[in-house]
């Protein structure tokens, strides 16, 4: 009788064991695939948002305006990562990646130039490694060298305030006209530790120093040379590595555009439209001399001369 009871127990416990093991396996599979699906969904959303940002940046290209401002608001906390690749094709590429807080309040994973990164060859975004917040200000300013090269885009978070200390009058006027709430002039700065202090022509207790008369910005121990206001803002709002990479891409485009204008000059000269501009000299100078922003000075001199010649030409090329 005892034997019979024992066997009965064995039979039931085996069935239960079997059910538990297989059940656990099924549950494990279900949870595993559900987690995978959620991760994939988050990745898709990040990718989609990144692409949308790139697309939404199209309308902020300037035509006759000197500057354009727009805002971008996300429903949840978002990080916008900006990357730059200056070795891709003829123009390099702008990389954008988005990371948002997931359902467990963790940032979704990021790997710039990874599977979630979207890229654009015709965009130049200047930003810190990443900017974080729900609301972002997108400022766009044309860069001319000597002809229009591109619209430079600066992305800042509404939670990052920049305090401009003792800027020159024209910069003061530009910032004041812009009415971008996170760009503050001296009188409006709060003095809080989170504020990013931008000093003009003085070092002192600042996060960066802009030597406006000497055309360079010093930030994190690195010097970024600029040649006009558009590049100065670019140096202020971006990390030094991004700045150097984007300026190199801008020089690549300058070379291509100079080549286009050189061909156009030859083409329209057949119609009696003469313009003796040394565009070939500019192309050679960029190809031979440009390594980093320190070389902008010499190229700028050439560009200025070409601009002057074009302005006085009876037949303007641009």
């Amino acid at each position, binding site marked *: 009788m005892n034997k019979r009871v024992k066997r009965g127990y064995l039979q039931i416990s085996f*069935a239960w064991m079997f059910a538990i093991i297989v059940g656990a396996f099924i549950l494990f599979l279900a949870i595993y695939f559900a987690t995978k699906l959620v991760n994939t969904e988050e990745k898709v959303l990040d990718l989609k948002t990144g692409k949308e940002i790139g*697309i939404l940046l199209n309308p902020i290209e300037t035509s006759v305006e000197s500057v354009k401002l727009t805002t971008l608001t996300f429903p949840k906390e978002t990080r916008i990562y900006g990357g730059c690749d200056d070795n891709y094709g003829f123009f390099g590429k702008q990389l954008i990646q988005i990371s948002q807080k997931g359902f467990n309040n963790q940032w979704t994973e990021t790997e710039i130039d990874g599977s979630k990164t979207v890229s654009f060859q015709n965009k130049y975004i200047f930003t810190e490694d990443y900017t974080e917040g729900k609301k972002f200000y997108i400022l766009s300013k044309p860069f001319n060298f000597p002809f229009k090269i591109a619209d430079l885009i600066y992305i800042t978070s509404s939670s990052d305030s920049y305090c401009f200390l003792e800027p020159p009058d024209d910069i003061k006027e530009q910032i004041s006209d812009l009415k971008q709430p996170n760009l503050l002039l001296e009188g409006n700065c709060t003095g809080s530790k989170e504020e990013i202090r931008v000093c003009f022509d003085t070092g002192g207790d600042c996060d960066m120093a802009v030597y406006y008369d000497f055309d360079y910005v010093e930030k994190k121990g690195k010097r970024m040379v600029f040649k006009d206001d558009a590049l100065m803002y670019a140096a202020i709002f971006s990390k030094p590595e991004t700045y150097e990479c984007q300026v190199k891409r801008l020089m690549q485009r300058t070379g291509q555009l100079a080549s286009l204008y050189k061909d156009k000059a030859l083409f329209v000269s057949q119609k009696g439209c003469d313009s003796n501009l040394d565009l070939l000299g500019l192309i050679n100078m960029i190809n031979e001399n440009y390594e980093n922003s320190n070389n902008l000075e010499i190229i700028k001199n050439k560009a200025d001369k070409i601009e002057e010649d074009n302005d006085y030409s009876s037949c303007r090329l641009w």
Partner: protein
Amino acid sequence: MQAMVNKMRGKKGQLKTKKTGSFLAFNCLKSKKAQLKIQQMAFMLMAVTLFFALVGMFVLAIKFSGLKETAATLCEENAMMLVTKLANSPEFSCGEAFDGETNCIDGDKIMMLKENIDAYEDFWGASNIEIRKIYPAEAEKVCDIGTYQGGDCNTIRLISKNVSGFDDKYNFVSLCRKEYIDGDMYDKCEIARLSVRYNYNERC
């Protein structure tokens, strides 16, 4: 009972039963029942797993078809946004080369761009970029350098890949060029349609 067990188990079982007696035969029957139960449960579990796998595959199929639509919508959106601002990009715009024109495309520059389009093939993320004069309404004559100089064409195909099934996104622009007649040079501007199309299968 014994007879029933023997009937169920066949000859081999019969032999065993004979050896071990009725008590063991009863246990064997119970064990057989347990095996049957396990088999039933195994089939049931397999069916449940299969059911969830099928449901999962179905959900994924719906999800990915949605994803393709999203990608297509984003490409379309890109084309739409691009066409509104393309005329202002440095490769297209007139700048100050022509008097007081806004939303103006420099035809001479565009023809030079067409000759060196390789560098710009993927620059705007569009598969087709075309500029077509809309007046006078004539049959399509595609421009090359020769026909453009003679003014004997009305369509500049800047980038043209094989794309089908998608509508053009277009915008109206001034298409300007330098003309030279009787020793005088002048600006000739005509109204044109700038259209952009994207390829569904490529990254836009």
